């Protein structure tokens, strides 16, 4: 298809490079430098989607970030990209896009029936219509609404694109590269400030790209180009295009989304698709301009009705005519600029000016060009369904209440200008209390709460001369305060055409007997009548009106609709706009992809992976790993076709019969030094620590102040003032913070230092009746007999030239030792243990066997110390000192904690000695009792006892002390299981603890 609406010459596109693309399956071509929108318009394509509620045909309304209609779904790089604004998407070879919100297609849309049923879709229709009957909601209403409504469809596949985050610091972050952005950036850069200058489009220059002005002796566009090239050469300036600063957060943190690769057919390797910038700016300069306001009239959503500034941009930037028979409908001089551009390119526009009369340099130029201008004229309604083909126009009375002389004239587009709305989103997000400026009928920033200033038309300044002057001055002033340098740059002279005052008129009354829809919010289909209805129904607060009617709640966040909505509410309510106030502006200013927000923290990268120094050995020996906090630990070592159950049983059995070795590097370790350590530990742990001799370890339990067990572990006195504490893998970081809290804030008088040494030591637990034999061979010179190294003893040794710490401690309940060497020697130690242990049938064992061993011994661990239990619940009351005070002690006398039937850990065994009890099952007396079945407790950990060869679990149940011997039931509704069980002691194996002392 040939381009019928492209001018022969002009625009900033590269006419030497043709680009082909498809839209809704049809092939078109455009040029390098086009957006999808400009290329479609060049091909005469105006119908791009359907509206949200009524499924009315929709075309293009804007030319940039404010676009409410032209939302398309893209296929790029084999990924689906929903909700892309066609006005922002740059064209690339092979681009594929399609309309959204149309089913089955854009030309025949089933939902459009809503348009004819629209009296059933009034304001608040979701709330009213689908209320009754309730049972209809899930099965009938919701699926239909979901199918018929909504914009693009998100992919359900994993997004393979790469997204990045970046952190930056700067003196000035300048948002927008129009005249105010360039001037302030230039002045500040000359003063040596570190600057980030962000432009959301691909081209720098903002309004200078489309306006007819002279700066110095250059055109505005040439001036912009020159400033940009100078800024690019300065080392203190970061210049970013395709970058939208979308959020202003606390302490001058602004977040920017950079579309790094979206304009390319493919994302290069090692390059992200998008990059999110977290920018901490000393000063934020908001120079993001203003957005033209629509005028409201009948069927003003028909494709072909668009902002006059957008029509001008398509002409001047892309060399595209949005129509060949345009009506310009305006209440100010901006419409004339568009009319003049049409005329200069051989197209005859008609200008309908709502004003009775107006005179200015721009209007004079239009008159001199013989442009047909009708004052006191309005568009009453656009005609045409999928595209404007004519308009009813009429004369309007001076008081703007009466229309007369309605006539129909042919046209193929209607360009509207209802004056300008400053873009105050970022300023408002920063906490700026905005004020209403009556001169321009819009809100502008006023008192700054953060380090922020708004310049140019974003601040309601609409002349270039004043914009440049204030921006040069502000850029210089702000940067000087930071750099203490001043390099004055002369402010250039400006030639621009002066405008006359705009008309406050914005909404055309309905002609008698007509019921045209007059839209305020184009994306969410909110019409004048909807707001009027909401007000009649009693909604008053603008925030409520917004939510009830969904005005301004779509993905465009009401960029073109907010002010007209406010005008209407204030008119109906007989209030002035500032009394009505505006709704809160919240980030993001434009939609941000979830991928960009998540960044690189996906899958394996969502947290760091820690591996022990023996990791490679485990890998080579068929370890199957499990995540343990941030660590990867061997769960079991697979032999042949073994499964988890078989392998862990073999490993655990070998520990009970021979000897096993387990990687315990992941245990938290804290090095503690100082003369007051014993006193400190005495306050931290529940048991007594003042008399622990050098060379001895002790098991300890620490509580939170509320009496709940925080962690357990052993601490060893290495020398007089040096201790080595171990914590559980999961609580290592919390315990360190906890100790630091008490040392720094509560008892600063204690002379104690703590530091994490978790990563400094590699650990191996050697456990089983033959572990002493292995240890003796590892340390032939040491006396490791029961007398030489008794239970809870500590010794240092020489492991074939490597310094080692040896602790006689046991988690498995067997005779056991833990050997620690510096991390770098971990693998050496491990291989030595395996080599020497061979003759004793040593086998490595993983976390699954480790759990089995501790469960059947009744040793409590994380699943019992779950942040809800006190020492008594875990049968640790013997470790709670009655004599001394410690953290959390006072809480232990709470009524509930000393109740006679307090919960306690017990063992449970299935009566059939066969059925494994799922963890998380709950214990009940009667499995058939009426729901809710009174629950006695829950199963915290389950294993297959290798000692007795039957299932065994630990449970925490009410009055556990008196429940031993009872026959109860373990219920797992999730697995539909009801298992008869017997309550036994939690110490199922070796209840007297003789093995560890043997």
């Amino acid at each position, binding site marked *: 298809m040939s381009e019928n609406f492209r001018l022969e010459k002009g625009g900033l596109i590269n006419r030497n490079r043709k680009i082909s693309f498809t839209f809704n399956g049809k092939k078109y071509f455009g040029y390098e430098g086009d957006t999808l929108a400009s290329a479609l318009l060049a091909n005469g394509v105006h119908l791009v989607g359907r509206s949200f509620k009524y499924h009315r045909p929709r075309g293009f309304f804007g030319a940039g970030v404010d676009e409410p209609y032209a939302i398309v779904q893209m296929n790029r790089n084999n990924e689906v990209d929903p909700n892309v604004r066609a006005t922002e998407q740059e064209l690339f070879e092979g681009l594929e896009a399609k309309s959204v919100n149309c089913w089955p297609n854009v030309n025949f849309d089933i939902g459009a029936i809503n348009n004819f049923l629209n009296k059933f879709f009034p304001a608040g229709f979701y709330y009213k219509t689908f209320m009754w009957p309730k049972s209809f909601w899930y099965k009938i209403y919701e699926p239909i609404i979901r199918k018929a409504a909504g914009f693009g469809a998100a992919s359900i596949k994993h997004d393979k694109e790469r997204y990045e985050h970046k*952190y930056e610091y700067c003196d000035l972050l300048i948002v927008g590269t129009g005249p105010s952005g360039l001037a302030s950036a230039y002045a500040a850069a000359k003063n040596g400030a570190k600057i980030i200058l962000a432009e959301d489009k691909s081209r720098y220059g903002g309004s200078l790209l489309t306006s007819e002005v002279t700066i110095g002796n250059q055109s505005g566009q040439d001036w912009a180009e020159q400033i940009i090239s100078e800024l690019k050469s300065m080392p203190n300036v970061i210049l970013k295009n395709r970058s939208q600063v979308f959020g202003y*957060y*606390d*302490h*001058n*943190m602004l977040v920017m989304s950079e579309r790094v690769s979206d304009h390319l057919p493919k994302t290069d390797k090692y390059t992200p698709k998008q990059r999110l910038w*977290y920018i*901490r700016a000393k000063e934020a300069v908001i120079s993001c301009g203003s957005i033209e306001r629509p005028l409201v009239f009948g069927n003003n959503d028909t494709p072909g009705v668009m902002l006059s500034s957008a029509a001008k941009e398509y002409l001047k930037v892309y060399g595209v005519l949005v129509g060949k028979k345009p009506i310009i409908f305006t209440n100010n001089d901006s419409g004339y600029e568009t009319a003049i551009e049409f005329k200069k390119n051989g197209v005859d526009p008609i200008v309908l000016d709502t004003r009775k009369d107006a005179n200015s340099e721009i209007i004079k130029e239009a008159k001199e060009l013989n442009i047909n201008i009708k004052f006191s004229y309005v568009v009453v309604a656009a005609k045409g369904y999928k595209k404007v083909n004519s308009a009813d126009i009429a004369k309007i009375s001076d008081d703007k209440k009466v229309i007369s002389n309605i006539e129909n004239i042919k046209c193929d587009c209607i360009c509207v200008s209802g004056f300008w709305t400053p873009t105050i989103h970022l300023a408002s997000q920063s*906490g700026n209390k905005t004020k209403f400026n009556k001169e321009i009928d819009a809100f502008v920033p006023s008192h700054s*709460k953060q380090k922020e200033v708004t310049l140019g038309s974003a601040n309601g300044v609409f002349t270039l001369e004043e914009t440049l002057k204030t921006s040069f001055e502000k850029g210089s002033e702000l940067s000087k305060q930071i750099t203490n340098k001043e390099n004055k740059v002369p402010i250039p002279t400006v030639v621009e055409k002066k405008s006359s005052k705009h008309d406050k008129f914005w909404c055309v009354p309905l002609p008698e007997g007509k019921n045209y829809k007059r839209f305020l919010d184009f994306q969410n289909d909110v019409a004048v009548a909807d707001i009027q209805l909401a007000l009649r129904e009693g909604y008053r607060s603008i925030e409520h009106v917004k939510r009830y009617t969904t005005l301004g709640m779509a993905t465009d966040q009401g960029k073109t609709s907010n002010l007209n909505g406010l005008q209407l509410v204030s008119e109906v309510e007989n209030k002035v706009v500032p009394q009505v106030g505006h709704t809160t502006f919240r980030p993001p200013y434009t939609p941000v992809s979830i991928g960009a927000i998540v960044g690189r923290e996906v899958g394996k990268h969502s947290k760091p992976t820690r591996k022990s120094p023996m990791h490679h050995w485990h890998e080579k020996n068929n370890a199957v790993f499990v995540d343990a906090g941030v660590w990867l630990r061997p769960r079991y070592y697979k032999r042949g076709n073994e499964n988890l159950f078989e392998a862990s049983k073999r490993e655990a059995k070998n520990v009970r019969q021979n000897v096993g070795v387990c990687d315990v590097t992941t245990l938290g370790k804290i090095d503690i030094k100082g003369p007051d350590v014993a006193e400190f530990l005495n*306050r931290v742990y529940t048991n007594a620590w003042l008399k622990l001799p050098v060379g001895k370890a002790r098991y300890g339990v620490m509580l939170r*102040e*509320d009496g709940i067990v925080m962690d357990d572990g052993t601490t060893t006195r290495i020398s007089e003032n040096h201790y080595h504490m171990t914590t559980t893998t999961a609580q290592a*970081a919390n315990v360190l*913070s906890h100790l*630091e*809290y008490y040392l*720094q*804030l*509560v008892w*600063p008088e204690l002379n104690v230092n703590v530091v994490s040494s978790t990563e400094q030591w590699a650990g191996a637990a050697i456990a089983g009746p033959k572990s002493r034999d292995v240890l003796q061979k590892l340390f032939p010179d040491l006396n490791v007999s029961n007398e030489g190294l008794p239970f809870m003893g500590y010794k240092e040794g020489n492991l074939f030239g490597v310094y080692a710490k040896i602790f006689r401690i046991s988690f498995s309940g067997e005779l056991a030792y833990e050997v620690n060497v510096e991390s770098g020697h971990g693998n050496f130690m491990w291989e030595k243990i395996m080599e020497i242990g061979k003759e004793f049938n040593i086998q490595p064992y993983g976390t699954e066997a480790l759990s089995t061993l501790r469960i059947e011994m009744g040793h409590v661990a994380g699943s019992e110390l779950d942040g809800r239990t006190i020492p008594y619940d875990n049968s640790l009351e013997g470790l709670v000192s009655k004599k*001394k*005070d410690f953290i959390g002690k*006072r*809480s232990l006398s*709470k009524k509930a904690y000393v109740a006679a039937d307090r919960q306690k850990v017990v063992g449970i065994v299935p009566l059939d000695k066969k059925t494994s009890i799922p963890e998380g099952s709950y214990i009940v007396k009667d499995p058939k009792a009426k729901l809710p079945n009174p629950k006695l407790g829950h199963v915290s950990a389950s294993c297959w006892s290798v000692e007795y060869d039957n299932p065994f679990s630990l449970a925490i149940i009410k009055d556990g002390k008196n429940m031993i011997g009872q026959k109860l039931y373990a219920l797992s509704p999730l697995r539909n299981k009801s298992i008869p069980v017997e309550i036994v002691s939690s110490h199922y194996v070796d209840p007297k603890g003789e093995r560890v002392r043997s």
Partner: protein
Amino acid sequence: MLYIKCPHCGLRPQTEFSYGGDATVKRPELNKEVSDQEWDNFVYLRKSPRGKHLELWQHISGCRQWIKVERDTLTHEIFTTLKANENL
């Protein structure tokens, strides 16, 4: 994201810190008899002021020091930061 001035390290982003609650709560002295009410006040009961609040933060990814931060809970304005042993 807040920008917190650690008295030991300087201005650092919030992500380097962890929050520690009301800095004005005093732990009852060890071995002192305390009433249930007094103890509950210490363990559980916290004010949730709208406005100025002196609170604890730990610079966990930095110097690991616990610090005091006077912050407006409504606006997030930070008025002053103190070392653990300093008071307003």
